[in-house]
């Protein structure tokens, strides 16, 4: 199986040969790969070196946390990669931004109103969790819509609280 694996600007052509061999950009590696207690912790022995990493899948991106470093990784086959590259331009702009609760908590205050214009960096909402107040900011310019919460509301993780549109 062949994959195109991307970390930031770097692209790797990876081919999984068999259970103990992998080809990366034409170079063959001997490896031994195992997970730790069915947890998203992986142990990789490659050419004798021992590595251990957490791997999480978040919004289609493989987050690899290893030796204290964080790597967001895209793993795609050639078809997927082509598709993503060709539509990237059209998807990038426009559309709505949905502000989702990054964790369960209580809405402390909503300093914006429906229909209000906001600039990138403006505070949209203050959410309290674990005794900390977290200011959630707008990643873009736009108009506030679909305001679904008010101060005092409890929200679940990933719950959409409001949207910002062009």
């Amino acid at each position, binding site marked *: *199986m062949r994959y195109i694996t991307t970390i930031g600007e770097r692209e790797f052509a990876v081919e999984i040969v068999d259970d103990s061999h992998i080809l990366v950009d034409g170079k063959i590696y001997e490896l031994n790969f195992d997970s*730790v207690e069915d947890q998203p912790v992986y142990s*990789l022995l490659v050419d004798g070196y021992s*590595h251990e990493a957490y791997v999480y899948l978040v919004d289609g991106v493989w987050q690899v946390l290893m*030796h204290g*470093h*964080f790597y967001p990784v895209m793993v795609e086959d050639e078809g997927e990669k082509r598709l993503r590259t060709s539509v990237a331009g059209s998807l990038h702009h426009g559309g709505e931004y949905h502000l989702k609760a990054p964790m*369960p908590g209580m809405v402390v205050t909503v300093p914006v109103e429906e229909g209000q214009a906001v600039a990138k960096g403006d505070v949209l909402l203050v959410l309290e*969790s674990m005794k900390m107040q977290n200011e959630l900011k707008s990643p873009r310019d736009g108009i506030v819509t679909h305001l679904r919460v008010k101060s005092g509301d409890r929200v679940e993780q990933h719950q959409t609280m409001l949207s910002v549109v062009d």
Partner: protein
Amino acid sequence: MFKKVLIANRGEIAVRIIRACRELGLQTVAVFSEADRRALHVRNADEAYLLGPAPSRESYLRGDKIIEIARTCGAGAIHPGYGFLAERADFAQACADSGIVFIGPKPSAIASMGDKAVARRTVAAAGVLVVPGTEAVGALHDDDLLAIAPVIGFPLLIKATAGGGGKGMREVANLEEMPGLLRSARREAEASFGDGNVYLEKLIEGARHIEIQLLADQQGNTIFLGERECSIQRRHQKLVEECPSPFVGEDQDLRNRMGQVAVRAAQAVDYVNAGTIEFLVDKDSNFYFLEMNTRLQVEHPVTEMVTGVDIVKEQIRIARGRQLRYQQDDIDLNGWAIECRINAEDPYNNFMPSTGVITHITPPTGPGVRIDTGVYAGFAVTPYYDSLFTKLIVWGETRAEAILRLRRSLEEYKIVGVRTNIPFHQKLVDSHRFMGGQFDTRFVEERFSIESTEDDADADLDIAAIIATLVAHRYNQRATNIVQRGKRDASNWKWISRWERMQH
């Protein structure tokens, strides 16, 4: 004297206090909220009683209910830990009124030091330098504060009068932004302490936060157990603490002067039990009283590891009326200890709190490693309480050895189910300025970035690519298999739940 102690707290500090009681042969009583039925302090205590729903106001802040439980079950003393009711003079007084020993200072001492404005006046009167700021008594209105601010000079700090731990604290660069910051500071102070009052303090630039640990018995003996360096902070929350301070280092004269001033400040309020005087120290080794914490500190273990004194046991002995087992001359600093606060938050996502069930822990162990924790594999970290859930403390013969031990411990530490700030600590410990001991209280926010690219990260880029590809490949294969055959049997269920964990 009391034989049973109620611990009016939760998490790692409740577990820590239960341990001290057990090792003194005392019975222990835990209290818990509905969210904490499975918490370690409930499991480890001899007795455990439900306080109420998860929010602190309805559980761990219910002093009346806690005293009632203590009376009913025959607990002769209450240890408040830190946070919650630890610095509430009214609670200490209510304990005394009910004939229960409050393991801490007298209500009057808590009150004088708890109102930060009163505290500043008290210690200033005892001849201790204080950071310039508002000296007025009582509740100051925004108008007053806005008027005084330019006199103190910018940058300055808004601080909660009842506060601590960075809650309700804001930095102010100029008069224009001050009204908004006053509002949010008051709001946070009100939420955290039930008291929205704030005061102002000059922001001393390039300063270090260094504090002195004190012990005082009822016989009038007060000693200090060296200093702690707590300058590694983010949003005024301490993240890493050391004993001794790399700034004080071999300067025994500075250490003694700070210690003696701290003892004087404590004596000014007839202080009894464990307490900490926080100082700001400028580049020229001038030090200013910041505040006194009239309770056990989160970071007490670093002092324990370097002095050999079990501070919590000593607190209990003092509360039982015993004389201090140590005199000032008995206190030697042996080696070096560093503590990392392990918080449930994502350092790669602006340190957002992270909640969930911890599914796996492999802790670092071995020589010179101590862990204080309130969690275990299977426990759920909820959004109701502080994100600090574990402390990793290491000891070494020298600071260099301690740092190397910390590095290997952080690398060994595996926690799955919530995101933690362990990667932050790993990056920090590897930074040249931390290794050199060269940092002030603004180092983390101004000069440090977890995102910064480093050479060794690039070196492992191919390894990260290989691991991600192998995991993705396994995922694709398995997913195809399940969809094609519709096989939702036992082994697939196990696999599905595993992928659910992975996407946390």
